[in-house]
């Protein structure tokens, strides 16, 4: 909500600077989001009356305008504006003066005519365009009737001011008006002076009786459900003439940050802004049988709202109806058919208190957000405003629409029921706050806010003022105690808690460990958004991912079923900025949908593309490859003490023949391989990418506990062999033969070489193994190891036709 300092000063006396006001209101929980001070930047601008306007004798596009400047005499100016007529009240900057944008004004000749000044539009005056009507922003600004001719413009229009943007939490609906803010300023003053809250300090009229009426018109108000609408007052005004608001009213609206529309609408907006009470104007002659019924809508009922949209009402929507049909959605928006037009002469003003939830429901269901609904949802004051506003509005109508009169005041739900008091215990309060307050302290603190309290022993009976709809339970009163005493005044200490160890889930611990290991290997952790484009998911050949009902953008309409999309995006971003490689991982949730039930699991994605290792003078560059990725996976699994096996795998994301399923026992841990080129292209990656994805839940399941194993303390002996085999024989098969045939003394085997082509026969490959032998209880002899290698060689020859290429010791 926007409001100007001058409007607050007009309502309550206070001597805080704007900055102090912002801090002090913030201290009691009313946030002023921003503050802007506008100064008078023009000079020598006067209010003038046009006494004569005629075309310029020689300049076709100009008008010659004679002005009456009151005590300052007369002047003649030329203007290109077309909206200047005799009798208009306009601002003029005279020679020697200056416009808001700094233009110096001097007398100037247009043909044979001297122009001694310049008529101004809102721009030359630096006015706030947001607070002006379309007409006011067209051509020369017109001041309404009542502006004093000859006065300085800054005296006729509140130009220099400070405007505040008030942003309150949902429980502070009571601060969403000038009156509301003034009440909080009164609270600040009361607290500072250690005096009780005094509503009498507020200069707005707050009459407590309904307005007098001539009682010559018919109007009947009925409320069907008092739980949805506690009070409703209809004020019938006759002999209304529509038109723009007067100058004085207009400038008041400017201070209230209300854009003018028409006299009647302006008056309802003033009540809303000044008192925090939404009001609505109906055309009396469009209300069938002159009846107003507050009821819930029936199945199939519709209404064309003020914005011209035909809306089907959800049954049970709170509406205002005439004898037959809804004429307004209560608290949200009026109907078009019953709205006030330029020809309306009889108006019914609605002043009511609706249930916040009912208004919120309608507003949300219909998708209409209005200032009225915003206020009603946050709770309006059922007491003061419902009694004061009808009188204030009536007085305003009589003043602004000369000749009109109050014909009838029809109401239901008056008087407003008194709020019940609530009991509060001192021991409970201190036990909640860890404080040491006495009954008198609390009475005093309540007093600042106008909360009445009676004390019996250590028990308070508290009654809130009617505008504090937020005070319904004892902890809310505790909050007021804290608010008034100041949050900083309360003690702070470490809680007396039982000594114990904090714990975290094994999954969380595992995630930390994975991130630590992978970062240590040289991968950078990414965090990407969890949204993907369903089109991409399906194009990748994956099952459809969980869809969002209300995505932020079309590209982010589903939840990621895989980490690859986000990681590829991160890779793309870095590569497009000239990086030569990207090696990254991400842990987080991936999502799936099965039989309309959504599932999530913790996943780990690893993506490599381009350069894996940078180069410098000591180090050659190393490209990422499928075996770099496999090495990372092996290292990670080794760290977790997970024994695993790999098996060929065909999946949608990875190239067939270049991907494997990694499993431990019967548990699938994840997949690893070269990213399918189609998938890479789809994700914008041009180079080869290598991708692995693991289920962290599966990794957790497969982790084994470590127990110590005896190891050989005797020197080991190495033997290398290289065998020539058919290309179809895998290193894993050869490894298995070696392990099987070398006996228990084999400690480790390393594949030191694997190649084909070159001098080798077609269809053959050479694989080199380095075997390490050791005994737990003695130093081995070379001869006995040679015997074991001999067994291996024989087995390789007979099982896979391996031809020994060389043996090295």
């Amino acid at each position, binding site marked *: 909500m926007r409001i100007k300092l001058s409007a607050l000063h007009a309502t309550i006396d206070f001597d805080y600077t704007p900055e102090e006001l912002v801090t002090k209101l913030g*201290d009691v*929980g009313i946030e002023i989001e921003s503050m802007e001070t506008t100064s008078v930047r023009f000079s020598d601008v006067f209010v003038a009356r046009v006494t004569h306007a005629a075309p310029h004798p020689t300049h076709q596009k100009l008008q010659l305008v004679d002005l009456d400047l009151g005590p300052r005499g007369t002047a003649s100016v030329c203007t290109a504006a077309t909206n200047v007529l005799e009798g208009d009240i306009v601002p003029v900057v005279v020679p020697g003066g200056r416009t808001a944008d700094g233009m110096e004004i001097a007398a100037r000749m247009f043909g044979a005519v001297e122009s001694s000044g310049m008529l101004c539009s809102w721009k030359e005056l630096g006015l706030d365009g947001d607070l002006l009507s379309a007409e006011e922003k067209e051509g020369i600004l017109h001041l309404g009737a009542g502006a004093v001719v000859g006065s300085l413009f800054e005296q006729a229009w509140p130009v220099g001011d400070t405007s505040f943007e008030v942003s309150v939490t*949902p429980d502070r609906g009571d601060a969403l008006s000038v009156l509301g803010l003034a009440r909080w300023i009164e609270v600040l003053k009361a607290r500072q002076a250690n005096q009780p809250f005094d509503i009498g300090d507020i200069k707005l009229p707050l009459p407590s009786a309904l307005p007098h009426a001539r009682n010559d018109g018919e109007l009947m108000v009925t409320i069907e459900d008092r739980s949805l609408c506690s009070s409703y007052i209809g004020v019938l005004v006759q002999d209304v003439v529509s038109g723009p608001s007067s100058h004085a009213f207009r400038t008041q609206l400017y201070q209230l940050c209300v854009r003018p529309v028409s006299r009647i609408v302006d008056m309802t907006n003033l009540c809303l802004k000044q008192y925090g009470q939404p009001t609505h104007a109906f055309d009396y002659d469009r209300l069938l049988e002159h009846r107003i019924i507050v009821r819930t809508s029936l199945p199939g009922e519709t209404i064309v709202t003020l914005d011209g949209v035909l809306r089907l009402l959800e049954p049970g929507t709170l509406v205002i109806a005439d004898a037959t049909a809804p004429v307004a959605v209560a608290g949200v928006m009026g109907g078009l058919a019953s709205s006030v037009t330029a020809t309306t002469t009889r108006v019914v003003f609605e002043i009511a208190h609706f249930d916040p*939830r009912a208004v*919120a429901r309608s507003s*949300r269901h219909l998708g209409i957000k209005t200032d009225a609904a915003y206020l009603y*949802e946050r709770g309006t004051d059922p007491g003061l405003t419902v009694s004061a506003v009808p009188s204030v509005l009536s007085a305003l109508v009589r003043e602004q629409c000369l000749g009109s009169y109050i014909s009838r005041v029809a109401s239901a739900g008056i008087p407003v029921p008194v709020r019940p008091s609530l009991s509060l215990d001192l021991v409970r309060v201190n*036990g*909640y*706050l*860890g404080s040491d307050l006495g009954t008198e302290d609390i009475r005093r603190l309540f007093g600042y806010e106008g909360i009445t309290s009676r004390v019996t022993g250590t028990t308070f009976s508290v009654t809130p003022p009617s505008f504090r709809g937020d005070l319904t*339970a004892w902890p809310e009163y*505790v*909050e007021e105690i*804290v*608010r008034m005493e100041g949050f900083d005044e309360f003690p*702070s*200490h*470490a*809680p*007396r*808690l039982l*000594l*114990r160890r*904090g*714990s*975290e889930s094994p999954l*969380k611990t595992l995630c930390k460990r994975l*991130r630590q290991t992978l*970062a*240590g*290997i*040289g*991968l*950078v*952790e*990414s*965090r990407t*958004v969890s*949204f993907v484009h369903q089109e991409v998911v399906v194009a990748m050949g994956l099952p459809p991912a*969980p869809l*969002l*009902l*209300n995505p*932020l953008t079309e590209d982010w309409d589903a*939840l990621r079923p895989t980490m690859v999309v986000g990681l590829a995006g*991160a890779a793309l*971003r*870095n590569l497009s*900025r000239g990086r030569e490689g*990207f090696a990254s991982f991400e842990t987080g*949730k991936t999502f799936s949908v099965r039989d*309309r039930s*959504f599932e*999530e699991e913790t996943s780990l994605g690893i993506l490599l593309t381009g350069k894996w*290792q940078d180069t*410098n*003078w*000591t*180090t050659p560059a190393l490209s990422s490859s499928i075996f770099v990725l496999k090495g990372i996976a092996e290292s990670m699994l080794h760290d977790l003490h997970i024994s695993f096996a790999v098996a060929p795998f065909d999946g949608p994301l990875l190239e067939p023949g270049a991907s494997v399923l990694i499993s431990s026992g019967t548990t699938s841990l994840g997949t690893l391989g070269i990213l399918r080129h189609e998938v890479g292209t789809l994700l914008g990656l041009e180079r080869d990418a290598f991708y692995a994805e693991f289920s962290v839940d599966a990794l957790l399941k497969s982790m084994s506990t470590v127990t110590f194993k005896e190891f050989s303390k005797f020197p080991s002996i190495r033997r290398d062999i290289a065998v020539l085999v058919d290309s179809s024989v895998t290193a894993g098969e050869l490894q298995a033969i070696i392990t099987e045939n070398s006996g228990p003394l084999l400690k480790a085997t390393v594949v030191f070489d694997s190649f084909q082509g070159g001098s080798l026969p077609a269809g053959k490959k050479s694989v080199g193994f380095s075997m390490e032998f050791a005994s737990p209880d003695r130093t081995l002899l070379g001869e006995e190891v040679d015997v074991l290698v001999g067994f291996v060689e024989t087995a390789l020859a007979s099982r896979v036709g391996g031809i020994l290429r060389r043996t090295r010791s």
Partner: protein
Amino acid sequence: MPSTIDEIRSALEARLTAARDAQDVRNAQIEYLGKKGTLTALLKQISTVSQDQRKQFGEQVNVLKQWAVQAIEQRLSELSSTTRRYDIDFSLPGQLMPTGRKHILTQVEEEVESVFLSMGFDIEDGPEIEQEYFNFEALNIPADHPARDMQDTFYLAPGTLLRTHTSPIQVRTMKREKPPIRMIATGRCYRRDAVDASHTPVFTQVEGLVIDKGITFADLKGVLQEFVRGVFGPSTTVKLLPSFFPFVEPGAETAISCPICGGKGCPTCKNSGWIEMGGSGMVHQNVLQEVGYDTSIYQGFAFGWGIERIAMIKYGIRDIRMFYDNDLDFLSQF
């Protein structure tokens, strides 16, 4: 080969003078004093010399040996003080090593977790796809309450949504366990905010909850104070301002003394010396009743802060989008 004592002495003398480095001297040492050295051989000759000359010869050889040992030592020390064996250009970079990193949000998250673990808090977890009940109703945010406007929500199905905060983990924990409860939860949350410098639809929260007999507002202040000291440094102080969050009452916005200017005022704290970090307060009666706790016995506090916000303040990061861009130039800084 020199055969007389004088010859040997002058030969060694010349050799030592010519030595350019310690290795040369050591080589000479081996040549003369080693097992097969010239002097050693001379010592062995003593027994073969005739009886009458033996004593004199023996003395001469021993004098020579003593001189040799001393001369070698002296030359070694001379050389070590005047010459270097190596002359390495250490401005050259070392061999490249892996430069992997945890994401900055992970680093901050783990730091926050370790502060609370050390205070005996459990770290709880919960689903990101959440039921409306746990995310809203159970937290005293009924349908059609304006508080729902504070958190624009992504829905997957009616009643099923992406959690807008980590607070549903509070509810799940309380429904599962009886007091005392002392927990935090960190995790990803979702709000339907358009992306700008201070909003991303995905963000990370840390949530805390303590419920027991006699837990007070003063305890909340004490725990938050420990937390900010642990994360932002020992001189950081915490200040509470009245605010509204439906699941707490009294509710407070928590501000910390600006760690950048130390409270003097700077652009980050908009010259106020304070920076708002997140919400906190005493757990609302409705929330405790909803999980079946006896509110006449148990009470406690809760708080929820943004991990991104903590990282932004701690490291002076201005744009929240950077966390999710994963630019290596950004990630490698932390």
